[in-house]
């Protein structure tokens, strides 16, 4: 069955269902509103996907291990606030700022991993839910519940710059999405071609069997949550670039749910052992495209929510149904 072929050369083929959903969405929307298929709008879609795509990368790794990281969004906001705190203190060196931001994210991720593996908390849902609250509070504390703005250009560059309009076809392409593409390629290779990457799937599928095969499940898990922290930190830098501010109150936004939705639409599972980078990217794009399309159509919030809910369900339904049909066809073909 296709769901098992993690190493299949074209991971995309495995996700035909969600890819199909994305295409159908795009086609419907280009007919529904003329502004959808313009170059500038497509660039906007990429911009708007960046943060969720980065956070989803970390979430995916945790989901593959049959875990979850609910602190991703709060972590990202915490990182922005750590950078904001530096600014408040008068530190304007962009390098220090970025290093502190990334360092905070990684540290938080490491703590998440440690809580899970060394203190034996039963499921990362608990530790990361707790961490989400802690980080939300910390984010408010470090900047004194104030909104910080005025970040240096070099810090906001990643989240706000685009390729110059003179570049053919890709004019206006956001730098942040170039980062996303690079990370997705690296992570894709990492997950499918390295020993550690493969171990992650195995730890997710059966931690005891992995342990008895000599894989240090605890270390692998800690690594995954640390990686998730790093991704949140990268998302933080993009966030600062986009909004230009740091505000602890932003931690209330459902970044975690969006990331989980992207991963699941893209084929990951709560039971672990499943999920690909390409699928996750498609998932993240689907979510942005629906939102973007509904915004262009000036649909009311109420209807927007209903449509998003239905698309989440349908995208996954499509995938499941396609897989079932596939299995059926192969069964009937068996001689």
């Amino acid at each position, binding site marked *: 069955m296709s769901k098992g072929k993690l190493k299949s050369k074209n991971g995309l083929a495995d996700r035909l269902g969600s890819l199909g959903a994305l295409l159908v969405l795009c086609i419907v929307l280009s007919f529904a509103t003329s502004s959808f298929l313009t170059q500038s709008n497509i660039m906007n879609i990429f911009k708007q996907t960046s943060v969720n795509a980065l956070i989803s990368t970390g979430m995916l790794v945790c989901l593959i291990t049959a875990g979850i990281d609910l602190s991703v969004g709060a972590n990202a906001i915490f990182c922005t606030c750590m950078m904001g705190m530096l600014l408040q203190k008068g530190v304007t060196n962009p390098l220090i700022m970025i290093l502190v931001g990334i360092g905070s994210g990684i540290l938080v991720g490491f703590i998440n991993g440690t809580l899970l593996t060394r203190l034996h908390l039963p499921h990362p849902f608990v530790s990361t839910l707790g961490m989400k609250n802690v980080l939300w509070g910390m984010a408010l504390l470090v900047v004194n519940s104030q909104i910080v703005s005025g970040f240096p250009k070099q810090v906001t560059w990643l989240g706000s710059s685009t390729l110059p309009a003179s570049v053919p076809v890709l004019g206006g392409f956001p730098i942040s999405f170039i980062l996303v593409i690079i990370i997705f390629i690296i992570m894709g290779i990492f997950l499918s071609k390295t020993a550690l990457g493969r171990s992650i799937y*195995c730890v997710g*599928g059966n931690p005891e069997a992995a342990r008895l*095969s000599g894989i240090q499940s605890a270390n692998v898990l800690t690594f995954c949550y640390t990686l998730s922290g790093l991704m949140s930190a990268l998302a933080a830098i993009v966030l600062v670039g986009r909004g230009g501010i740091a505000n602890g109150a932003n931690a209330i936004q459902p970044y975690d749910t969006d990331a989980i939705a992207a991963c699941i639409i893209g084929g990951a599972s709560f039971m672990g052992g499943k999920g690909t980078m390409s699928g996750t990217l498609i998932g993240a794009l689907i979510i942005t495209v629906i939102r973007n399309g509904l915004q262009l159509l000036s649909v009311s919030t109420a209807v927007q929510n209903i449509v998003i809910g239905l698309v989440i369900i349908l995208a996954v339904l499509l995938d499941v149904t396609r897989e079932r049909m596939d299995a059926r066809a192969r069964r*009937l073909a*068996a001689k």
Partner: protein
Amino acid sequence: MSDYVVELKGVTKRFPGVVALDNMSLSVKPGEILGLIGENGAGKSTLIKVLTGVYQAEEGKVYVSGTEHHFKNPNDSAAAGIACVYQELNIEKLLSVTDNIFINKWMKKKSGFLDYSAMNARAKEVMESLGIDIDPSKAAGTFGMGVQQMIEIAKAILIDAKMIIMDEPTSSLGEKEVELLMKICRKLKDRGISIVFVSHKLEELFELCDRVTVMRDGEHIWTKEISETDNDDLITAMVGRSMDQLFVKAETTKGECALRVENIKEGGVLHDVSFEAYNGQILGFAGLVGAGRTELMRAIFGADPIDGGKIFINGKEEKIRSPKEAIRKGIAFLTEDRKGQGLVLGQSVQMNLILANLKGFCKGIFIDDKKVRETGEENVKSLRIKTPSQDEIVGQLSGGNQQKVVIGKWINSDANIFIFDEPTRGIDVGAKVEVYNVMNTLTEAGKCVIMISSEMPEILGMSDRVIVMREGRIMATINRGDLKNFNQEDIMKAAWGGKIDE
């Protein structure tokens, strides 16, 4: 009225990539014990699941007492009087033994609420009749495989069935339990209940069955009275070729002491266990189920923490705190519970084959796909793993073939000491030879093999030395050369706690 309680005619069942049953038929007479055998992947378990309504066949008919039935789920077949012990354990680990035994057949009080005191009492009674004395209100997951297997059996014999199917019920039982089970089967037979009995241990079939049905590649080969057939006849029908002797022990020379264990203690389970294992030899571990052999090996392998004792590898004392360290120090440990501890069921055959030696299959930081594929091909061929391809999900292979994957996994590691815990569990006669050959190859290459087995012929056929355990203690050590004591009777005696006369 028909002559048969249950009849299957022309059943065909396909899975993606395989035809598991091909125009298969089976008929069971009232009050008989029918043996069902075939190679790993022949379709036995599938046939059984069609019979109990777990799978629906594409073609074919099922008759119970002459009337045609369409089983849509296990409830339908239970209603028609068919009970089943499935090949894989299906235990609710967190629930009590009582809950497991009475799952979906709960006893109720008049008020409609569940009657736990009655159920507990009944559960205790049944388990005792199977030779197991436990508190049935304890969680089932706290017991070992042997007890869990008995829970499954208790589940089936508790309901009022016309026919009970047992799919390899003895694969995780010891001699004592097997004997008790046979006794119970005969009792059931006397009450007019038919039994379908699947086993890869031919001697069990000869001892227990009235007739035997052989299947190969999903097809019915023949059905004969047990008295009209013999070992060779069965094997030839099953494998499609005749086979040489089962146990061909390679002649090897005893090497250095590879593993020395001194006074290992683990609270309540192991009491001051000491032994030595040598390169170029197979060390057998015999004992009844629950003797603590598995616990001993887990302790050595670093899977469980120990409370005292020393471990020497090649004469050097080593602290082993985790399986990873054990593997790094050259120990391989094939666990008895393949589903829970041996395999990542959701991953491919290939992935599972390289699991214990990921580093060894890397070129730089990347996995060497070519090497992985080649090794996979080689394992599939040499171990005769029946699978559509090495990319197939392991969970979809037949039980025996899954076991072969676990063996392949450890062969692919670069260990020096191989601990095999019940390595031939659920493996067909043909493939057993392959496993023995693997052990022979290892000892010939000067490696050390430790084999835990509850099958006496295997212990006697393969071991250079046998250690007998009971209740976490070593009762006896017997050398192959020791003609006086190297026999079934003496080993069993030690396992039961008796003294062997020197």
